[in-house]
């Protein structure tokens, strides 16, 4: 009966200046699951991530990570250290650092000020960075300045930086934005390959991409700050409510 939830969001509310961004939101994620979240603009997808990662505090409700780690009240870096990684919608990498350095700074390890004053890279970390470079297909550009990468490559680099942290839970905001079809497809394959080892929540607009990565898994539709429905891709697509608020209007 008892399911191994990696993320439990229950009865969460958040109001910004009278605007109800999140209203009575319930969301459960199984360990190792890959869940796609869709919803029209303003449905509260970004706020949802903000709440989980500590950027904003909910007015009420419960947000738990793993068995019983309460995330409410913790700040961004504390939540990250627990094992929650977040990829932003617009790729945010360290533009003046090389690809290699971007990954190195993201590797799991001590994060304190004084630790970093004298820290040196270990051979194991080098190997790990090489592996990551292979996963995100940037071996050839390891010494490039990250700011000089193409948009899609930056997206990958950021995913690589997330993986370097080795988080249990990955929150990925529109990873395919600005990518070519081919890149989008490869990003999908990458995310699918990560599921199982990591638990992943992907927010996405591109329905072809959603279909690719959702496979037989569940899809969550957000609307006006709460869950409109959950289910398989086909079921969701056929749902008249969903068609009304989202698919019918957007596509």
């Amino acid at each position: 009966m008892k399911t191994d939830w990696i993320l439990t969001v229950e009865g969460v509310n958040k109001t910004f200046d009278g605007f109800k961004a999140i209203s009575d939101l319930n969301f459960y994620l199984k360990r190792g699951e890959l869940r796609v979240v869709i919803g029209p603009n303003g449905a509260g997808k970004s706020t949802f991530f903000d709440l989980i990662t500590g950027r904003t505090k909910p007015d009420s409700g419960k947000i738990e990570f793993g068995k019983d780690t309460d995330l409410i009240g913790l700040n961004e870096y504390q939540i990250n250290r627990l094992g929650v990684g977040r990829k932003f919608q617009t790729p945010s990498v360290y533009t003046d650092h090389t690809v290699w350095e971007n990954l190195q700074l993201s590797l799991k390890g001590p994060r304190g000020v004084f630790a970093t004053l004298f820290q040196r890279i270990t051979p194991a970390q080098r190997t790990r960075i090489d592996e990551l470079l292979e996963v995100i297909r940037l071996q050839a550009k390891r010494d490039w300045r990250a700011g000089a990468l193409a948009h899609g490559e930056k997206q990958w680099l950021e995913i690589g930086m997330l993986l370097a942290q080795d988080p249990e839970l990955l929150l990925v905001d529109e990873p395919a934005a600005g990518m070519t079809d081919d890149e989008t497809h490869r990003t999908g394959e990458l995310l699918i390959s990560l599921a199982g080892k990591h638990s992943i929540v992907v927010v996405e607009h591109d329905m072809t991409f959603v279909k690719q990565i959702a496979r037989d898994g569940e899809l969550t539709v957000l609307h006006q700050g709460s869950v409109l429905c959950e289910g398989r891709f086909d079921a969701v697509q056929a749902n008249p409510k969903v068609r009304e608020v989202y698919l019918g209007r957007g596509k």
Partner: protein
Amino acid sequence: MQRTVLLSRGQWMVFGGITVTLGVVLPLLNVLLVPGHPLQVSDFTLNLYGKYLTLAVLALGVDLLWGYTGLLSLGQALFFSLGGYAMGMHLMLMIGKRGQYKSDLPDFMVFLGYPGLPAHWQPFYSFWFALAATLLVPAGVALLFGFFAFRSRIKGVYFSILTQALTYAAALLFFRNDFTFGGNNGLTDFKTVLGHELNDPGTRRTLYVLSVALLGGVFLLGRALTRSRFGQIQRAIRDSENRVLFSGYATAHYKLFIFALCAMITGLGGALYVCQVGIINPSEMMPDKSLEAIVWVAVGGRGTLVGPIVGALSVNALKSWATRAYPDLWLIVMGGLFILVVLFLPGGVVSVPGRVSAWWRRRQARRTAAGVAVAEKPVPAPGEKSAESASTP
């Protein structure tokens, strides 16, 4: 990916050469040659250079914050002045009975009718206490201010405005006679430091050499810091603070650390400045002093360690000349210089050699492409070019 070295062999030679020239050759030219000899460095010149060097320390403090961390502090002169005041208090007490009023109390206290030495002045009889205070008072103020500013996530222009307000508020406070630091006259008429007469050329020479040493030391410290993992995170905060925060780094702690460290560095510079200039008053805390330091860094080249030094020395040399030759025009010249650099030379003076050689390479590449049909050397792609300049640890 070899081990990080502080400086390469060539860089050590340049560093050593400049340090020896400034720290040994110039003082020797001062002491060995008779005044009037074409190569003689006068006492006045040496003292002036010493002052510039301490200002270069201030510039490094500004740049480690602005150029490397993205924190534009418009109040760095406050920490410089606090260091200066801490040392000034000691020097004030060392005047002893040689002041105008032949009293153990500093002159301004006699003049203002103080019954005795205020308690917080007592420990400054000790040179070492005063020296510690030149480090710890600026650090304390920076920690306190930084704690609240960074905790409240005050960033960008708001941080700049607040630091400017802070230094202005401090200046107003120090202008008051009842604040026990000499009001608008500040602290002056110093006689001795550690028993040495301050107007003795030998003492001045020593202070000058100490300034060279301090600047060299701060440069090496900055070099070590910016090449460490900490330095990488510093620049990452500058370029994408959110990414750093969401990667598990407490960015506020990093900013607080560098803010306090720079305050200490700057405070030491201020202490040596006051020893050589012989006066410290609240006008040194006025916002325009901090803004001048921003101009030095911008002109020299922010985000580099050589740039602020070049900028501080050259702009101040220009200032010394211009304020004598065209006293009314100096502010316009400085403002114009700043605008020119921002518009046409964002990398500052130190970026000129790189720009020239890049231009030369492009020219050569064009010629090769145009003249001979065989393309010998393709123009490097943007990524490759930056890979050369990027510091790979």
